[in-house]
């Protein structure tokens, strides 16, 4: 339980919740279709989006077609040839060439260049929002090193700037902007939820002394969460807290800015991405914590681990994630695990694109899994070669593309089925939701769980 001083502070917050997020609410003007004015504005925005990687990626494609087999869309929906990575990127590349390619100045059609018309912009919208999860699997299979993830993000950023962005995705970002987390969880409700989870945790055998500290100054780790956890998956927080307590980890959660997600990574608006990162950074400073600890969330992990420092120009603190910390604690012998808990199950692990391919966390989850289970089967494509499940890049927040998203998950569903596993482990909430949908849609008898949920029941306390 919290000490009296902390309790008073928490009660004060409950009585008068602070206005989190920005002071003035924002509603991004989302447009239903491209207009000539929007296209003219896009022309003005293009140069600023062309950093060295984007420019090289736009100019460097040789149309060799080597990316064809690498994309979960083109592999799962082979009848639609317009879902090939090179084709999708060409919707943007054609416009770029029209503006910048030397040959296109004289013979635009010869090099496949096209002016930005409504038709081309519509295709760009369809393919780069609804046909790419920025998973970068094609990038890893491109002989030229074309970074499709960066290229798509640049195109999305331009479209968002003029208002042509999937409404639900933008609503998620606006909610984060206005309320400090992307599900508008009020501060008092969040605190109550955490306190309730703490009580539930303390009711578990051997956990009577376990705590989930809120706003504890000077804690070693600052644990960040995905808003889906307090909102829909409180047991995930409970599992994470159980693991951290069992290992004697000194951690805290902020009552203010605890949301590790950053959907501005998906709509390409850097000032928003930077703002959300800044809130976390400021909380780290306020609470004087040493390690920023990412919960199990794919893009959230990548945003905090790799992009936050770029957005903010460097950071003075260390970083870890639940995946890495749990592996470290197991290797240090700080967690005792009883494998018999999971003796009757067969497990596989789905590598989130942002955690593995774009994040470098590949062996740590396997250390955790092998410590907790005996029956673990890898999917055919794993680690940096893992196929995207189809839920990345904000795809789950674009209901207009849901049918294609589920269809694109077929290759992942097939690989899960081939393992014979009845539990699919992963470390990402977008993956969780997508995997649950495709497991059901493709009739696979498997449960979806994250790593803390795997470890927590097997802990010997």
């Amino acid at each position, binding site marked *: 339980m919290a000490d009296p001083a902390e309790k008073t502070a928490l009660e004060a917050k409950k009585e008068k919740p602070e206005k989190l997020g920005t002071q003035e609410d924002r509603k991004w003007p989302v447009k239903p279709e491209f207009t000539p004015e929007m296209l003219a504005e896009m022309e003005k925005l293009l140069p600023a989006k062309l950093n060295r*990687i984007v420019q090289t990626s736009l100019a460097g494609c040789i*149309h060799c077609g080597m990316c064809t087999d690498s994309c979960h869309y083109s592999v799962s929906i082979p009848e639609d040839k317009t879902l090939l990575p090179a084709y999708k990127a*060409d919707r943007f590349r054609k416009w770029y060439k029209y503006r910048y390619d030397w040959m296109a100045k004289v013979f635009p059609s010869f090099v496949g260049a096209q002016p930005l018309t409504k038709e081309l912009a519509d295709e760009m919208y369809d393919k780069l929002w609804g046909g790419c999860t920025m998973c970068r699997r094609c990038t890893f299979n491109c002989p030229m090193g074309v970074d499709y993830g960066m290229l798509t993000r640049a195109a999305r950023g331009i479209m968002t700037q003029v208002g042509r962005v999937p409404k639900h995705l933008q609503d998620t970002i606006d909610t984060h902007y206005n309320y400090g987390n992307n599900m508008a969880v009020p501060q008092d409700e969040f605190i109550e939820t955490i306190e309730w989870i703490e009580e539930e945790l303390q009711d578990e055998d051997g956990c009577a002394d376990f705590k989930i500290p809120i706003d504890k100054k000077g804690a070693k780790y600052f644990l960040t969460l995905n808003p889906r956890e307090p909102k829909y998956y409180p047991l995930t927080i409970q599992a994470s807290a159980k693991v951290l307590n069992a290992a004697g980890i000194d951690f805290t959660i902020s009552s203010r800015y605890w949301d590790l997600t950053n959907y501005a990574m998906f709509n390409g608006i850097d000032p928003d991405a930077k703002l959300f990162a800044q809130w976390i950074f400021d909380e780290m400073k306020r609470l004087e914590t040493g390690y920023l600890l990412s919960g199990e969330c794919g893009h959230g992990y990548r945003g905090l681990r790799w992009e936050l420092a770029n957005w903010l120009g460097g950071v003075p603190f260390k970083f870890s994630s639940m995946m890495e910390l749990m592996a470290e604690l197991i290797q240090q012998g700080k967690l005792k695990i009883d494998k018999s808990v999971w003796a009757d199950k067969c497990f596989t692990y789905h590598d989130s694109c942002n955690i593995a391919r774009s994040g470098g966390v590949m062996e740590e989850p396997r250390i955790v899994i092998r410590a907790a289970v005996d029956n673990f089967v890898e999917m055919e494509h794993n680690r940096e070669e893992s196929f995207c499940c189809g839920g990345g890049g904000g795809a789950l927040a674009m209901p207009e593309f849901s049918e294609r998203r589920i269809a694109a998950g077929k290759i992942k569903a097939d690989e899960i089925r081939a393992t014979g596993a009845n539990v699919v482990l992963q470390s990402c909430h977008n993956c969780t939701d997508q995997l649950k949908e495709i497991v059901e849609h493709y009739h696979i008898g498997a449960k979806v769980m994250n790593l803390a949920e795997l470890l927590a029941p097997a802990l010997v306390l």
Partner: protein
Amino acid sequence: MENTVSHAMYILEEPVQYICLTFMALMYAIKIYQMMKKPGPPEKAELKGDRYAGALHSLANVLRPWGMESTRNHLYFYAEFVVFHIAVALTIGSTFFIPLVPQLMGPTVSKVIMVFMGLAFLIGLRRIYRRITVPEIRIISSPDDFFAITLMTVFFAVGFGAMWLWIHGSPETGFMWIFFLMTTFFLLYVPFSKISHYVLYPFGRVMFGQIFGGRGVLNRHAK
């Protein structure tokens, strides 16, 4: 071998080539300058791997067909790629060797180059066929893609003919004239075509290697 040619052929083989080569170099310099003046990829987070080792690893990717699924699963395609590009290097090399060090272009060396030219010609034909017939490739192809591969394929055929006559003691032939005229055209045209992809190649690979090497994704077995 001796390169006893007319003054007109000498003009084509040397001064014209040098002027065109200078033009090509200038165009590439401008291209590289335009790219380098853009902001590079920042990576201010604490690294998990080595950006330099990653860049080297990525650059050497071309020598590791097992490194990418796309080449691992298409080894025949990869082998074609290797032969084709070796042929490109040898064919371009021969346009320097013939006028500058003709003694190097003895029958053995010339025949080796001809073998590669011949294979590259066949590969070129197959690539044209593939671009026309495979729906996935046709849908992403522009006229420049067809023109570039056709041009290269013809270049190999002409080069093969010129070399055949060269090793039979005829340094100045119609084939050799066309070979050097095509070379001249290439030097002027390539900076504006997709063939110039080799200039962007090292930049794309290095940036890829820096990002994913620094993040500990590449090279992790070597660490």
